[in-house]
């Protein structure tokens, strides 16, 4: 059985260090296409930039299973040039402005180094330090070395991937975890199903790539691979933490409901039973806000039974997230086992 090892970790590192802000996913797309060059005849890049891969199985009664993982990450776009390498910018995707000042960034295709500046403590008053610095007042500063930047260029955090035993720290774990997992599944495609794989674009700005990919594939069902926040730190006052979303170290997070979709209950059962039978840890993500590509996929055409599985990670959508290697390994193991066990019986009866 395929598994996550050093080669996959190397690939995760390469993908996390790539810059791929929504609408400008070229860098990650290039890595994906390179990794899948042995399957090139089954690959196309669609009008929005999704990488669509088809791997047909063998045998009779194969289900058409769509797997999707988004290639884009949250970041910034330069929208104003103040001269001397100072740029006004907008955020791309959901970002907490409070977390931005003082962060190093990489700008544009040439990865020009820059910083989102913050006035040093020596020169601020106590009152100023109580205020949130609004986005309008922030600048990306790349200094006069510029010249290769244009308005519209994307920027992202300069954080480099680090691994320390069972711990992974990086930017963009949302959703490079999904991308590597999906690459491994394409390379080790189970023969009992037809695998329809979408590496999607523009998820962070509204599930746009997934919408057209699902329309094109028109699958029998879909499994979305993503990464989801773990907000599992203890409460400051010792009260029970009741809104953790997911917890690190508790395995893959299976979705029941989020802002954009209800998972198909048959698929939720299939995943949780697979985990129990295979002895793989899993957790249910707390129902609530947030969303994945499933929000678009399940509404495509006449409706597509869908479910999402995510790797939990703390500090999502900030400069640096932290995750556990085992949660990722178990996510891969669960999805692989669930695919191998898929038979058309699963959807033969009505959604219930």
């Amino acid at each position, binding site marked *: 059985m395929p598994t996550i090892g050093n080669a996959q970790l190397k690939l995760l590192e390469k993908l996390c260090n790539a810059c791929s802000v929504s609408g400008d996913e070229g860098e990650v797309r290039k890595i994906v296409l390179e990794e899948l060059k042995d399957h090139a005849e089954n690959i196309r890049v669609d009008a929005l930039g999704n990488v669509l891969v088809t791997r047909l199985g063998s045998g009779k009664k194969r289900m058409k299973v769509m797997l999707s993982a988004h290639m884009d990450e949250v970041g910034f776009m330069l929208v104003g040039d103040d001269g001397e390498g100072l740029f006004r910018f907008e955020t791309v995707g959901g970002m907490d402005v409070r977390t931005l000042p003082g962060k190093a960034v990489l700008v544009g295709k040439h990865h020009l180094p820059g910083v989102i500046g913050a006035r040093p403590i020596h020169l601020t008053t106590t009152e100023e330090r109580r205020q949130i610095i609004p986005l309008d007042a922030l600048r990306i500063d790349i200094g006069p070395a510029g010249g290769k930047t244009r308005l519209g260029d994307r920027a992202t955090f300069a954080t480099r991937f680090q691994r320390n035993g069972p711990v992974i720290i990086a930017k963009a774990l949302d959703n490079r975890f999904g991308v590597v997992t999906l690459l491994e599944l394409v390379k080790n495609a189970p023969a009992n199903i037809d695998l329809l794989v979408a590496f999607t674009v523009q998820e962070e700005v509204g599930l746009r790539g997934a919408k057209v990919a699902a329309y094109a594939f028109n699958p029998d069902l879909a499994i979305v691979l993503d990464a989801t926040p773990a907000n599992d730190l203890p409460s400051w006052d010792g009260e*029970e933490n*009741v*809104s*953790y979303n997911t917890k690190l170290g508790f395995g893959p997070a299976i979705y*029941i*409901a989020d802002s*954009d*979709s*209800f998972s*198909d209950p048959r698929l*939720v059962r299939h995943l949780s039973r697979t985990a129990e039978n295979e002895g793989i840890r899993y957790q*249910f993500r*707390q*129902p*609530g*806000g947030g969303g994945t590509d499933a929000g678009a996929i*399940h*509404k*495509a*055409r*006449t*409706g*597509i*039974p869908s479910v999402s599985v995510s790797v939990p990670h703390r500090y999502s959508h900030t400069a640096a997230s932290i995750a556990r290697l085992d949660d990722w390994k178990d996510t891969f193991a669960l999805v692989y086992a669930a695919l191998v066990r898929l038979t058309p019986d699963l959807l033969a009866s*009505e*959604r*219930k």
Partner: protein
Amino acid sequence: MKNLIQKLTETFSPSGNETVICEVIRKEIKAFVDDVSVDALGNLIARKGSKSKNGLKIMLAGHMDEIGLMATHIDGNGFIRFTGLGGIRLTGLTGSRVRFMDGTPGIIGAERLTDLTKAPSLEQCFIDVGASSRKDCPVKVGDVCAFDRPFLDLGNRMIAKSMDDRIGCAVMIEALRTMKASPHELYFVFTTQEEVGLRGATTSAFGVDPELALSVDVTTTGDTPKGSKMEVSLGNGPAVKVKDGGMLADPRIVNWMIRTAEKAKIPFQREVLEGGTTDARAMQVARAGIPSGCLSVPTRYVHSPSEMVDTADVQNSVKLLVALLSAPVGL
């Protein structure tokens, strides 16, 4: 028809969990339709008749789901934290009774409030099912419940939870039963997940691919003390939607509905709803676009556990729907 309304409104089926109400409705309509199917999102799609020379393929949508709550965490003392399904009103949440799909009843409580003039947030509320530990709590994360309130018949008015939109379902069912003949190929679609984003209507409209679409849903009124400024009142007849927060009804459909009501001497009122929307919004933009409108049943206290409709309005809604479907449509 009141028995039907009672049966529908006393069934528990929050968004995403419409299986129970789907079975209830399937039983009610089976004898009156040509075929019935359920699609991937759980929409109940019933076809009646086929297209004659003067007929159209028409889709009607009434949503089966109702607002509800979903458990997100069971704490060490057996209290259930939850998230909302659909537009949950915070005022009046505490003290409400709920019922989970397996029948487990519970009440909603809240953390100690420091400001009694403000309604507690969803995060401050919890459900108490009488459990005293996580282990003896019968509810699991992901389980759903709906508000529990019995149907009440006041004669000229009826009150129930989930009038939104079981009253629309009831109007559609009653129209199916009383309609004599139609030149149209009719699709009575009882949709899912309307309250969380018109999701069932999105996929079923793609599947049915109609030439004309009508939703049958509730609309709010402006006839209560210091209520919203709105021309719709209980008792003035079914409302013909001109516009709501998410859709501009096709003016040809509005005119057709009004002409039909006038001809059949059915009272009606024109509706402009500033907030909210219905399945018609999703149907209108399905595929290459579908002329769409909405027949609304005026309803007070929408999204509270006690939604009130007028009995004559309901009967007239059925009459108007039957009249609309019984003759060729000249748009």
